[in-house]
């Protein structure tokens, strides 16, 4: 099976303060993400899940003073290699955040098209088509096709989150990263997003951070359990949730802490 992401001995910290640097948020994470699978990341709050995702598309360094060590290979090429432009990496890796973040000053249409336009695409016909394709992928097209010019913020929370997925998909990313994409949504909307991810898995490689253990169990092929910046266990989801190797994993999934 083809591995799309190869994370090698990844460490990360916040802040230039010696104290922060000596307390890394991630410590020597290594794992590999397989193509057209859903990889779930679970772990208690503050264990570094978001940081891990943000290291993959080089968003971690947006925080002032943040540092990264180790490497991430995206389809065989280093993301942190010399002369690699983080902007170009981010165009190849889609990201969806915990809270829906549609751009309030842009219409629904432009919210989806903005990534394409950043890539230099200008032809209206192509944009129109891509916008429709992306909105259909997230099963939002029928709900919004008559109101494409309304602001993205005029949608409901669940619709906004699907819009954000469409926005990330529009540029055809090699990997899609989702950071607790359903934690701000009601069960109905969460269900729709899950359904959507199951569908997207056929053509995309997905990494999802979730606090919801059932969601990880239902949705993912592989699961990684993080604890205090360390990857405790990484294995097939069925294995993690039935016969975990590490006692700490078992404690966590049985709800004994976290």
């Amino acid at each position, binding site marked *: 099976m083809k591995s799309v992401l190869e994370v090698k001995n990844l460490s990360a910290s916040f802040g230039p303060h010696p104290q922060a640097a000596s307390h890394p948020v991630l410590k020597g994470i290594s794992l590999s993400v397989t193509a057209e699978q859903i990889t779930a990341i679970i772990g208690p709050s503050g264990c570094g899940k978001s940081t891990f995702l943000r290291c993959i598309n080089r*968003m971690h360094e*947006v925080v002032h003073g943040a540092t990264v060590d180790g490497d991430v290979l995206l389809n065989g090429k280093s993301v942190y290699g010399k002369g690699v432009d983080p902007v170009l990496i*981010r165009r190849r890796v*889609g990201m969806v*955040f915990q809270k829906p973040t549609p751009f309030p000053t842009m219409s629904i249409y432009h919210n989806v098209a*903005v990534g394409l336009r950043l890539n230099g695409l200008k032809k209206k016909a192509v944009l129109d088509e891509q916008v429709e394709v992306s909105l259909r992928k997230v099963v939002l097209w029928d709900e919004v096709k008559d109101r494409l010019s309304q602001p993205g913020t005029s949608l409901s929370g669940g619709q906004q989150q699907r819009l954000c997925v469409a*926005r990330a998909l529009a*540029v055809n990313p090699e990997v899609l990263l989702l950071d607790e994409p359903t934690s701000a949504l009601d069960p109905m909307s969460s269900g729709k997003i899950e359904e959507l991810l199951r569908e997207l898995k056929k053509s995309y490689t997905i990494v999802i951070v979730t606090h919801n253990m059932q969601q990880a169990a239902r949705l993912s092929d592989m699961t990684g359990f993080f604890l205090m910046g360390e990857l405790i266990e990484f294995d097939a989801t069925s294995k993690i949730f039935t016969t975990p190797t590490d006692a700490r994993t078992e404690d966590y999934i049985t709800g004994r802490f976290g």
Partner: protein
Amino acid sequence: MKNYARGGNVPYRWEDPLFKGVTFLFALFILLLTLFIAFSLLVHATPAIKKFGFEFLWGTTWDPVSEQFSALPFLYGTLITAVIALLTAVPIGLFVSIFLSEFSPRWLSDPISYLIDLLAAIPSVIYGIIGLFVLVPLMRGNIEPALSNSIGFLPVFQGPFYGVGILTAGLLLSMMILPFIISISREVMLSVPQTQREAILSLGATQWEMVYKVVMPLSRSGIIGSIFLALARALGETMAVTMVIGNNPDIPLSFFEPGHTMAAVIANEFTEAASELYLSALIEIGLILFLVSFVVNGIARILIPGGVRAA
């Protein structure tokens, strides 16, 4: 079951209605004060309004000796100096505030922003002194000749170099309003949520693309508000302008020549206005200035988001 909601089973407090009443009275007092100012200006301007009618607004003569008064030279001077100030201060101010909020590291932007806030608090007579002793010679000796040599085909940049004049006043105003534009715009830009910035960055936007696709659109009304606030300050600025504009009640073709403004003429001639009509004409100019500033300030207040309002 007890109901603790407002209007429920809460014991009566006599302080509440008293406090409400007092704050209401204060609010009413401010409103009345505003109306009173407008009204008394109107009353005292009435002789001039009766005598000159609308002619006052577009006539060009200002002759205390023959008691012929009209306001166009001052309207022109006020407007044109404000326009010069905005045209120069807005682009510079926007670039500086974008730099401060988006590009410069904290250790640099914090002290700079502090200094800029200090600049905004300097009394205008100090700006006037700087204008008179630094800007005027610089204009006469360097800037005006340079402008005349480069874009002198425009009539407004022709003629003798006086040093004092409309352009000098405009540029001095520009220096004075720059801190307002920078400090409000910067704060408006800083209030754009980090999640919005990260969302566009994660789509592969560069820092600049982030600024013009997300930060600027979200700050637009606040920035325009800051410009109106700056405009209100420029229109009403008196002391510094009168020190460098030359105080000449005329409408010169060239920006190099001395002119006059509404605020400057009132300050300069109020003590000398011997006749009732003269005084009344000055007060009518004051009334016009009051109305214009009122409207411009009002627009600024509507546009600048609540949390950021500085003035």
